[in-house]
């Protein structure tokens, strides 16, 4: 799978390169579509020791990302959907979303995706826990759509053992600890 098909590769010359981008000059439109928000609903299933994740993305924003990767229209959810579409989507999800328990990254299983007629792209992924782990700390990194949309906010809603935790990932803070047993008494 050639993911970076039409991409250019840049070499970092200087970290202090000051660049003003015209990328988002276009911005809002009165079109009813400016969301820049994704939601990852993460439910810990204690029977199967698995984090079950449902991610809601704005479909046309993801399509813009795919286009930026250098792919032509993948026709998501249509009859002529590219056979590569799922692989590209999941590769993208895996590179932009990660879950760590007690400092160790979990490897995900890909469950599937679906697209609604009102422009929601749902992606389903599960992260099985390494057997025998006592969950002390859960860390999430979620940079979905951020490269293209600097205003993107990724909201992570975790439900574990009857409690709820939330973490919002932004360009400025793309990862964080969503759950910890260490400061339980605070």
């Amino acid at each position, binding site marked *: 799978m050639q993911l*970076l098909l039409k*991409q*250019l*590769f*840049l*070499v970092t010359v200087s970290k202090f*390169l000051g*660049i*003003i*981008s015209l*990328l*988002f*000059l*276009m*911005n*809002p*439109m*009165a*079109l*009813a*579509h400016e*969301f*820049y*928000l994704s939601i990852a*609903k993460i439910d810990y299933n204690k029977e199967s020791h698995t984090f*079950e994740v*449902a991610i*809601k993305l704005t479909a046309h924003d993801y399509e813009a990302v795919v*286009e*930026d*990767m*250098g792919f032509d229209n993948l026709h998501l*959810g*249509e*009859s*002529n959907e590219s*056979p590569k579409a*799922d*692989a590209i989507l999941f590769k993208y999800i895996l590179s932009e979303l990660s879950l760590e328990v007690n400092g160790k990254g979990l490897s995900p299983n*890909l*469950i*599937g995706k*679906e697209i*609604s*007629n*009102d*422009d*929601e792209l*749902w992606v*389903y992924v*599960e992260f099985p826990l390494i057997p025998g782990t006592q969950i002390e700390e859960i860390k999430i990194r979620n940079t979905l759509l951020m*490269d293209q949309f*600097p205003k993107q*906010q990724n*909201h992570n*809603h975790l439900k574990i053992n009857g409690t709820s935790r939330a*973490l*919002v990932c*932004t*360009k400025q803070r793309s990862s964080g600890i969503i759950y910890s047993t260490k400061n339980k008494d605070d």
Partner: protein
Amino acid sequence: MTKLLLSLTTLMMVGGAMAQSTNKFKQLKEELATPNVYRTASGAPGHEYYQQQANYVMKLELDDEKQILRGEETVTYINNSPDRLDYLWLQLDQNMRAKDSDSKKIRTSDINESVSFRELKRLHNEFDGGFKIEYVKDKSNKDINYTINKTMLRIDLQKPLQSGQSYTFKVKWWYNINNRMEIGGRSGYEYFEDEDNYLYTIAQFYPRMAVYNEVEGWQNKQFLGSGEFALTFGDYDVSITVPSDHVVASTGVLQNANSVLSSTQRNRLAKAKSETKTPVFIVTEDEAREAEAKKASGKKTWNFKAQNVRDFGFASSRKFIWDAMTVKQEEKDVLAMSFYPKEGNPLWERYSTKVVAHTLKTYSKYTFDYPYPVAISVHSKSIGMEYPMICFNGGRPEPDGTYSERTKYGMLGVIIHEVGHNYFPMIVNSDERQWTWMDEGLNTFLQYLTEQEWERGYPSSRGPAYKIVDYMGGDKSYISPIMTNSESILQFGNNAYGKPATALNILRETVMGRELFDHAFKTYARRWMFKHPTPADLFRTMEDASGVDLDWFWRGWFYTTDHCDIAIDNIQHFKINSGDPEVEKAFAKDQDAKSPGKRFIGDQRNLEDIKETENERDPSIDDFYTSYDPFATTILDQKQYDRFLSSLTEDEKALLKSDYNYYQIDLRNIGGLVMPVILEFTFADGSTEVQRIPAQIWQRNNEEVSKVFFFKKEVTGVTLDPFVETADCDLNNNFWPARMVPTKFQMFKQRGGRYGQGTRENPMQKAKRIEEMKGGSK
């Protein structure tokens, strides 16, 4: 009064307690501006309400070779305010695209190891945008002093403009039209490379008067990109010179059809004026294809006039197909029209004009009859943007002419939305620069109603209460109240479109009811038609016209980020103690037998293991207590019962025998937003009953309330918010007995969804393939 004893039969769930802070029903006296002669406490324009007027005469020329628009405008500004004006402010929106614009400077960006050509192209864009002002003169052609502050231009008047006076001045300008597909924009051009043609959608194209009123003074907040426009009403006379083979769609009514349209086209247009069902083509696809294949060298000038509009927009291309039909109204008929390139077909010829007509009919029902003579939908890829009488809408099929359901509904939705903007803010002219939600929220609400009237089960993305819960239940540090200035809003789409639309929908369905709401909403629209309303005018009118105190609702939904999460904390079941010892002692015995202690495992094993106890071996150790039955009825019990009965009136006796079930339900407000409580009770016989309790149940205690319900039948289940109408963000605490709502993930897995399922067909294409197979088997 005789007190009845209730026996507690079951106790379910235990909840905690919360402390009470400021009351959520506090009136909005501090938040809303003090009523005055301009705006009344009832939310109507006051007896001294005024607004300014700006009339424009413009001569424009579109340069198709260099993609430049040149214009000369004569503006007549009428000062209807009681104030003397020393200077005037105009808006220079194109300057947002100037090389040194603040919009560019304040936009953040970064760069990674890999970057696409498109991204890099945008980065390297050296587009020389913004207005080039050639002169500003008064009507006797004398230069006027002016100052440009980025996207605003101040004209310094030599003599102050007194109340009631008017002032005429001229501006000559030009600007480079932006390539919308490369650098974006609400207006600009799309270039069709294979045929070397341009499609122009032109707006914010002329220096326009800012609004002056008693609310903001001059509304001269800079245009940064998000906060849209605040504009003065006026009359327009606009002449647009374009290549002679271009077709122009514009705000206003075409004045010189004889010189720009062929006689065939004029006849077709006349036919469209009596056609109300099927759009009539004024320019067919074949004719448009012919025009785009060759380029004419001459020029034509199209003249349009528009009355009482706040802005002006137009579109021009030789690629345009043009169709039209009439929408009948009580007083004035409207011509619904669409202009689109062949790339929009088959979607556009099938739907656009019909959707325009449907939008006008539905919006008018909830507001006022559409007052303008035309309503136009122009196809411009990827965006949706509104202007008076005309809007630019996306929704493009695949090159092979097929399209997905998502593309179809995306297109229908955007046309409804942008045509709907004619009502808010083009006619009910709120200040978009200040409050995005006042037009976007109200418009999105009506868009939802219109979509649902288009087709049952229309997949509306915004409007229903349950659609907003992911947003409202999210992390509060990333949510701002609806009452936030347009440029400072976090999560624009949800904040200014989704949440206010949902709030209005909840008012209509749950809080006020459709009848009271529709009357009040229509009152607001009619009061502020062709005027400049503020949020307070909406809030006050909705209450004044309906007789419903909604301060709590505005406070919670518009001034805070509270969300709705009401929980069933505790349910207790009681039955009336009949006092009859025969009944009650038997009941007590039964309850005692069911108590957990009676099932102790040791007792059960001892029944078998201990063959004989000491007192069974030696009955002499038994005494009174050994055989005493506390649940046996005695003559004393019976006498007491008789005395009790004789003390009761007939009514009280009837109640005693009624055998009702009483349920005390304890509710907790976890989310903070006070909302009505809707409970559905399911009974042992399978029947159900719904009880609707107004939000005022929370009036004295915003955090915890209890209420008793009684039924003949025994309740087997309770559901809070059974019709998902309150935007309750956590449904897991809405059921008794407790029930977990399956997650989206679990539902997907249960349906058998999995990775790599392969391609899916939309039904349209599946049908096509079936037809092909049939054809092949013959």
